[in-house]
């Protein structure tokens, strides 16, 4: 998270950990203030009554994407230095599904669980214990999973590279999808609130 300053040796391991801790605290504080330390709020996502998580994610994506695009375009940011997580298609799809199922069952994702633990929520403490147990099991079983873990490597690819369309066009399409998704989410929330109202009366 403290890359590239850490990567280029501007500070060592210890300071990097301190900075990661501070950034983590800031991130956790923002999540807590947004109400994401509550499993009820997060679960609204799956009952379609509160799509705040979806909206926050899309807002973050669009803000960061436009920021990086324009900062790169005016020459303020060297986009080629931004780290891209390599794509391993199949294991990442399976990993995403496992995380999603865990999210639905447990009511948290790993980050929000840590936030909720900081306010001593018992459900989050048991969730985090499960996360740690899962990490342990994964670590122990890694030799068996290693082949799958490294399967279908596609390298550090981006949508413009993959689809052979200009970078800016991809940006525009994603903005439209996000804004459309945002409007759709608001509509769904209203519809669900209406249904709830009908059921209660």
């Amino acid at each position, binding site marked *: 998270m403290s*890359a*590239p300053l850490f*990567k*280029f*040796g501007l500070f060592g391991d210890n300071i990097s950990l301190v900075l990661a801790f501070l950034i983590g605290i800031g991130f956790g504080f923002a999540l807590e203030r947004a109400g994401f330390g509550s499993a009820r709020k997060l679960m609204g996502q799956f009952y379609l009554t509160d799509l705040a998580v979806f909206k926050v994610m899309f807002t973050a994506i*669009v803000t960061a994407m*436009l920021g*990086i*695009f*324009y*900062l*790169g*375009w*005016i*020459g*303020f*940011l*060297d*986009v*080629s*230095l*931004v*780290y891209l*997580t*390599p794509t*391993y298609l199949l294991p990442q799809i399976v990993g995403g599904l496992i995380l999603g199922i865990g999210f639905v069952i447990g009511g948290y*994702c*790993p*980050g929000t669980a840590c936030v909720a633990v900081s306010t001593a929520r018992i459900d989050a403490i048991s969730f985090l214990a499960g996360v740690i147990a899962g990490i342990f099991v994964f670590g122990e079983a890694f030799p068996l999973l290693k082949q799958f*873990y*490294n399967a279908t*490597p*596609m*390298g*550090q690819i981006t949508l413009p590279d993959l689809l052979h369309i*200009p*970078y*800016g*066009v991809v*940006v*525009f*399409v*994603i*903005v*439209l999808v*996000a*804004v459309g998704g*945002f*409007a759709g989410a608001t509509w769904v929330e209203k519809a669900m609130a209406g249904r709830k109202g009908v059921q209660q009366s």
Partner: protein
Amino acid sequence: MKLNLKKMGRNAKLGLLACLLGLIAAFAGNPYKGTRVTIDATDLAGIVQREVDHINPVDLADWIVKGQSDYRLIDLRSKAEYDQYHIPSAESVPLAGLPDYGLGRSEKIVLYSEGGIHSAQAWFLLKAMDYKSVYMLRGGLDDWKDLVLFPVLPQNANSEQLAAFTRMKEISKFFGGTPRAEAKVKTDDAVLPLPKLQVPGTSPAPVTTPKKKKEGC
């Protein structure tokens, strides 16, 4: 339908702004092209003088033994020479192909050639293209052979040298080398056979995609 900005909510305004920026982006061109590279001669000279652009063969051997994967090791010699022998985990990239090889500018890159001249030239080439973290293997493959594959125990070695040699012996054997004692060296033939390419515990090169980095939400 007429847009009434005053009546619009904050979210709608932000959404509209995002759409507008997105639309401009579609015609703006490539954000990767915005970077201009300027060579800071004083800075480069300083790096050369302080020798912070070098990696010791012993340190590199240590990284490979530990399975460290946060760097890319580039063999600049010809493909034939590479096929004959290369340092485990190295990728073969002859000098002419270097600019188009697809190395990331934020990646840690370690270059080596037979001696040191080609890697020094390649180092400057990459630095001029604004690669941030480029290193050369000190003494190239020659020093790799002398220090890692065939380390020598000097005659009348003191305890410190002996300890260092014992440590190097392990590393040398890991890479399939042959540690030597000074007395023996003199009687030995000048050319020692290079180890077979399959070295225990390391994967055969080339590895074109960088290793996974642990990151999470």
